[in-house]
């Protein structure tokens, strides 16, 4: 796998959630991903970025443009050094929320993208990686 481009953005505020999802969109527009692909990745990015800000106390987003056997992909990795998630299975379940949300962010994001990976350790933080292949 070749990384043709990468960039790390801070994720500390509501404004930065918008900047990160817009960056994801503009990279995908530039690479001519379909409109549906752009919309789904942008939405998943927004959900994960908000989780990092709201529950993780802020973090960062790393955008990567990938190439593998002639295929182009985009990966967004969002991480925070917040409290982590003790019960991942529960957190991934639709409609589970510890706050005021709909509990759709994690489960919904997973449905929206090609690849979804999550790592979390209580007391250390959370990292989620989503990828879309063209």
């Amino acid at each position, binding site marked *: 796998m070749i990384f043709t481009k990468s960039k790390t953005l801070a994720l500390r505020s509501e404004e930065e959630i918008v900047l990160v*999802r817009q960056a994801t969109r503009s990279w995908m527009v530039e690479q001519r991903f379909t409109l549906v692909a752009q919309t*789904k990745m942008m939405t998943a990015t927004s959900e994960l970025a908000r989780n990092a800000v709201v529950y993780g106390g802020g973090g960062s987003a790393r955008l990567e443009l990938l190439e593998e056997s002639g295929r182009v992909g985009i990966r967004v990795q969002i991480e925070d050094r917040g409290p982590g998630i003790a019960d991942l299975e529960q957190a991934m379940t639709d409609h589970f929320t510890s706050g005021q949300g709909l509990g759709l962010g994690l489960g919904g994001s997973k449905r*929206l993208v090609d690849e979804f990976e999550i790592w979390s350790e209580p007391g250390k933080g959370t990292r989620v990686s989503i990828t879309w292949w063209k």
Partner: protein
Amino acid sequence: MEHIPILKVGEFLLVSIQVDMHDRLAMTLQDDLTTKLVATRAKGVLIDISSLEMVDSFIGRMLGHMAAMAGVLGAEAVVVGMQPAVAITIVELGMELTGVRTALSVDKGMALLRTLVDEDSFTLNPVS
């Protein structure tokens, strides 16, 4: 402070969301709409989201709240212009947007609002 403009068009209010709103701005819009509905006693609200590139769970929840708030204040709300890719994404995300009426364009939304408002006045003041 930043605000999304709310216009009065005849007896209706028109909200056209032209920017990618951060969460606080979306909350402010919800409050502003409530205030404006009370102040103008408008019977209907049209929320144009044709410029929105995405509707995530936060914005979806806000649209639901605005529709519910309008209902409580005796007004009808119609969301217009949702892009097809946005609609597909909302469904896959798992959001139901129950209670949110939608129409394809501002014109169709206006027509729908008219019908809904006329029906409301008919049920409130039945002709005997």
